[in-house]
């Protein structure tokens, strides 16, 4: 079986940059990615896409061209990353005809990206309430609009492309509500020409589509009989508690919410990589100056080691590509990383998640949607002795369902007051038959039952 020099996991900005750099230095590279098309969440697109929905399209097409020099293993969902010499990626390929396969490589570059971070609020489980990234994926990936009357809420600059995307796809956007009031902490970002130009572009698009933009406001409840019909928007204090008497309702059929991003760290944990705090204080893979993790022959790039956007992802991906091929990176790349990391830190500081969101919850607001665990049961579990998300899971089933806590994990961690533990030995559901098919262990049918 083929053993690659390097397997890059993820074909977003970081993964593509890593693959391009490593392949250019003569390495035999595989890019292993769950999606059918390269680009990740950031460059999500349709076949034949002309890039009109995208910023940075030229950067993407250049990176995509680099795939000509690597094995692009599309549609490969990694359910477990097993450290070794070589490392082994246990994958599933296909959908209705799903089958197991393995990819082996001496070196790994983790560029597994991040998923949308949600906060719960009354009614967030109604059909019609989407994550901001989910709404954007409908449009970027399928050319679909999520609905006719939309509201966008959450925090951070990412809300702007979501709102303009919804508008461009034909929805009427009745407001963008950012819970933060950006202050002087955004100034470092304003000095970045690329971001300033991008922000100006969004501002113009908001004006053109007549989309109201409010800071210090949030959607604190969604209402509807069986599906979303309206939302309650309120003005917030600095800590995100709603100010009394400021609530008003907006009729809508679509609500897109986004409170930042959570890196996907399962594979890093499988490989034994140490975690550390990212720009916003939540867990990320720890890396050194060369993007090396603490696990042997494993590097990480992009959001996996700190949510910072596509430019930082491309820079860290390239750096990981140099390091994994044993090459010295150009000094200019190191300077760009330092600058992009400062911007990412400024972004995290300017758009934090404040504790007051917990006051939006009622006793019966679901925290874990898979297992239908209401807020009251989470509080009972904390009172009964749960001290982290694992304890919450054991005492209330929060995070025990199909998504393994990916949707509720951040909120659960905030409620219990301890960081998330991305300990998911099986990162993707795998059929028992497929798992059994690889069984080669010597037979010792000898262990007993347990209690």
């Amino acid at each position, binding site marked *: 079986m083929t053993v690659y020099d390097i397997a890059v996991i993820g074909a977003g900005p970081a993964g593509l940059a890593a693959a391009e750099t490593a392949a250019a230095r003569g390495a035999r590279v595989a890019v292993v990615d769950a999606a059918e098309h390269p680009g990740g969440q950031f460059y999500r697109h349709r076949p034949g896409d002309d890039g009109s929905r995208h910023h940075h399209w030229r950067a993407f097409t250049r990176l995509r061209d680099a795939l000509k020099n690597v094995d692009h293993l599309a549609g490969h969902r990694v359910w477990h990353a097993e450290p070794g010499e070589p490392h082994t990626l246990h994958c599933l390929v296909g959908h209705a005809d799903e089958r197991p396969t393995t990819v082996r490589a001496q070196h790994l570059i983790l560029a597994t990206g991040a998923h949308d971070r949600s906060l719960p609020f009354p009614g967030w489980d109604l059909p019609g309430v989407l994550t901001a990234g989910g709404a954007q994926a409908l449009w970027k990936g399928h050319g679909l609009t999520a609905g006719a009357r939309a509201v966008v809420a959450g925090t951070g600059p990412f809300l702007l492309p979501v709102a303009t995307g919804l508008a461009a796809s034909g929805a009427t956007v009745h407001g963008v509500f950012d819970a933060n009031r950006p202050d002087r902490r955004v100034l470092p970002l304003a000095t970045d020409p690329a971001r300033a130009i991008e922000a100006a572009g969004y501002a113009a698009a908001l004006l053109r589509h007549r989309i109201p933009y409010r800071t210090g406001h949030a959607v604190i409840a969604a209402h509807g009989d069986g599906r979303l019909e309206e939302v309650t928007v309120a003005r917030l204090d600095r800590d995100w508690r709603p100010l009394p008497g400021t609530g008003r309702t907006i009729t809508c059929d679509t609500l897109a919410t986004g409170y930042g991003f959570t890196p996907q760290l399962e594979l890093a944990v499988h490989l034994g990589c140490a975690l550390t705090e990212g720009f916003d204080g939540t867990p990320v893979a720890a890396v050194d100056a060369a993007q090396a993790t603490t696990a042997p022959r494993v590097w990480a790039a992009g959001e996996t080691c700190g949510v910072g956007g596509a430019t930082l992802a491309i820079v860290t991906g390239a750096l990981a590509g140099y390091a994994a091929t044993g090459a010295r990176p150009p000094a200019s790349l190191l300077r760009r990383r330092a600058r992009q990391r400062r911007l990412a830190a400024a972004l995290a500081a300017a758009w934090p998640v404040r504790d007051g969101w917990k006051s939006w919850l009622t006793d019966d607001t679901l925290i874990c949607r898979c297992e239908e665990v209401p807020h009251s049961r989470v509080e009972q579990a904390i009172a009964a002795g749960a001290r982290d998300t694992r304890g919450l899971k054991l005492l209330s089933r929060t995070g025990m369902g199909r998504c393994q806590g990916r949707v509720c994990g951040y909120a659960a961690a905030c409620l219990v007051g301890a960081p998330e533990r991305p300990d998911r030995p099986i990162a993707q559901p795998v059929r028992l038959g497929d798992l059994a098919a690889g069984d080669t262990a010597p037979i010792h049918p*000898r*262990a007993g039952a347990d*209690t």
Partner: protein
Amino acid sequence: MVKPLGGADVVVVGAGIVGAAVAYECATAGLTVAVVERDQVSGGTTGAGEGNLLVSDKEPGPELDLALLSLRRWREWAETLDTDIEYEPKGGLVVASTAAALASLTALAEGQRAAGVETAAVADPRTLEPHLRDGTAGAVHYPQDSQVMPSLAAAELLRRPGITVHTGLTLTGLTLTGGKITAAVTDAGTIPTGAVVNAAGTWAAEVAARCGSELPVAPRRGFVLVTEPLPRMIRHKVYSADYVANVAAGTAGLETSPVVEGTAAGPVLIGASRERVGFDKTVSVPVLRRLAAQAVELFPFLTDVQVMRAYRGFRPYTPDHLPIIGADETVGGLWHACGHEGAGVGLAAATGLLVAQGLTGGKPALDTAAFRPGRFGRPVEEAHA
């Protein structure tokens, strides 16, 4: 500077199911109890267990007597506790694949019946488990085998008045006066007390050492696979009679046998593996594959069922596979209630009862000689394995 936390008649170290049971029974006997837990309620092996209360897997002897006593106590708890602890007397079904395996299973069942276990020979196990594979030699049904949700049970037991739970607190040592305990020392202060119970499960050797004693308790790793939720396809705890030869195996290598059960919540749980690899949390893909292969062999329909997640735990292993229950023979006031290997949930209730009876000078409900902490002699090598 250490500060007093408020005294208690007894300090229990560990808020797993055994510590909770000890605390509950001591409080029921009228003692005030402080529970010291360095992590959280059910944070150790209890949180990685399936919660079975089994008599089927125990050979006649002291452990089976303990299990039967425990089973009766669990039934009482299930009736008297306020919160639903998901107690379910679903019964166990032990399946033999060959005539030889059936013969030894039948002999075991006869001995168990003489000791008070309800057993019933089942010629065609598919009358009880319709989705079981074809062509087994036979089975024995154990209607007393039951299940609880162990984390919920521990939390509920610890809610009893008279118990104070300190999570995130680590026992660092004892204060002794004249060879007897006068206080438990923690990283956040001292707790004046005359008695300390070591219910630290897999970490009991470390706690014993901090208390100036020694115990041979070592971790034995196990993995559990959890499937997507299904309608009730598997009604009992079903496992292979292959185990008969060997719950008692002591080798360090991988040992597995199929243990498959449906749960009220829907997912099917699949075990069991045993490895002596220390506290290594690394996921072993070969072990997961082996568990899957054995489960599919027992229940062919599982082939197309998805595994959603997996978890691992560390059983508190002792050299003779019996728990350690009783007073320490050197440190006055120190008690041990640990080393239950994979049977801690099932044996917890009786363990709690026996420790409470011992601490209050009552007559023990059964002979505890086989569980004496001092039975291993010294020096003890296993504890440092």
